[in-house]
């Protein structure tokens, strides 16, 4: 279980001081798929970095399965918002995906199989030998996703992973993430700006307020576990849920919790 308790993060650089997170508390059960939404600049990336142990919070704690997180915990994979900079330009696409697997000391055949499988799944079969900077923005982002997926993590953190891909590919990737989650029961924490995406993907959606950031609201998505792009999105319950999330976000931007009743 992932527990975030009273998390606070203040960036200080020179005279400038930014309170990115004020007081954040929520939990994610093992094997859960939680989507995080919130206004731009509210501290989502900051939160994810703290959870991954990449950034030290100013106050509060992050615990994974009861252990406080101080560095990146094993079995964790992360897709960075800055996908372009997170790929190593000196390695081919294949090497970028394979390197973490080597670190996990997987045998060669397994690595090769995983790399091929995931690159294929994100629609990049055939680009193994290219360097990342020879790819389009969306392709780079998919390489970063493939790298995380191939890692077979137990916890997967994704920071706006589909921002640069087209609608169709995005739908495919959404289904990929859900399939993966169902198959391997990984814990997924997924940041997105797309409310529909959050509702379609998540079992729960956590909404953050705008700065100073707290948890604005949380809902459980009580849609059936079997989802598909056509029918789920057409479901009236889907529309209800997305409207609720939308309103909460609107309220968050206005800076106070919505007074409307929960769904």
């Amino acid at each position, binding site marked *: 279980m992932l527990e975030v308790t009273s998390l606070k993060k203040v960036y200080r650089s020179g005279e400038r001081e930014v309170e990115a997170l004020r007081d954040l508390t929520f939990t994610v059960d093992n094997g859960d798929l939680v989507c995080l939404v919130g206004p731009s600049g509210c501290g989502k990336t900051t939160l994810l*970095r703290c959870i*991954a*142990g*990449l950034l030290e919070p100013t106050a509060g704690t992050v615990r994974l399965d009861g252990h406080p997180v101080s*560095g*990146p915990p*094993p079995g*964790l*994979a*992360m897709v*960075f918002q*800055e996908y372009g*900079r*997170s*790929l*190593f*330009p*000196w*390695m081919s696409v294949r090497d970028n995906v394979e*390197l*973490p697997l*080597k*670190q*996990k000391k997987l045998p060669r055949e397994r690595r090769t199989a995983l790399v091929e499988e995931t690159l294929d799944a994100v629609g990049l079969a055939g680009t193994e030998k290219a*360097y990342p*900077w*020879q790819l389009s923005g969306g392709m780079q982002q998919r390489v970063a996703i493939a*790298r995380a997926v191939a*890692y077979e993590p137990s916890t997967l953190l994704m920071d706006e992973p589909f921002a640069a891909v087209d609608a169709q590919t995005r739908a495919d990737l959404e289904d990929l993430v859900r399939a993966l989650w169902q198959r391997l029961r990984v814990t997924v924490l997924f940041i997105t700006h797309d409310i529909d995406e959050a509702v379609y993907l998540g079992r729960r959606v956590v909404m953050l307020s705008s700065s100073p950031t707290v948890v604005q609201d949380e809902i459980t998505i009580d849609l059936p576990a079997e989802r598909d792009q056509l029918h789920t999105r057409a479901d009236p319950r889907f529309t209800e849920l997305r409207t609720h999330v939308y309103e909460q976000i609107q309220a968050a931007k206005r800076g106070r919790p919505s007074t409307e009743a929960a769904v």
Partner: protein
Amino acid sequence: MRRAAYVLGLPVVLLAAWFVLSAGSENFYAPPLRQILESFGETWTLDRLGADVVPSLLRLLAGYALAAVLGVAAGVVIGLNRRVRATVEPVLEFFRAIPPPVLVPVIMLFAGIGDGMKVIVIVFGCVWPVLLNTVEGVRAVDGVQLDTARAYGIGGPARLTRVILPAASPQIAAGLRQALSIAIILMVISEMFAASNGLGFTIVQFQRSFAIPEMWSGIILLGLLGFVLSLLFRLVEGRALRWYHGLREAQRRS
């Protein structure tokens, strides 16, 4: 064809200018280029090359290789660790500012007067650009790349060899390249002490025995040597940093 023109164009122009301008030179210390070129052929016979240039080259390569390894290794340690940097930087700066010629006697105290001393003098002088550039390169590694490595548990040696060193490699290359020419300079300086052969020694001997055209021919040979070495270096660098040059050229030329 075009490349050859680029490589040879300017040198040919400069040499021609030198040749013409120096043709009537009466100055004892600046003889006509024609005379220098003549003596070049007479001076640098195969025997001479074997007896003087080869030992110099060996010392040079040994010193350079050692300096490269030391510089990169120390540079990584210093660049990665603020405390180490704070501790050793003043001492390093101290030694860096001391001219190698005045240190030679001290080095001789510890390393004797053999080839070892000369190699150490070369190392001592040309380790600095490598070290400094490695430190700067390591410090400037992109934060997102480092975070990526951490998140995926890429630690220990792999973090070093697969992330930090490649990321810093363009700047390390800059340092290595500068070190190369400094190494040649120090090869000459080191051969001014307790030497009995070597290119530097020979040039100094020519200078002392007033064999001025021969001395100039030696300087030209040094330049040629440096040129060839740096060509080799560029070849190696071009291969090792293919990704980097590709990345930089990608949008521009393709």
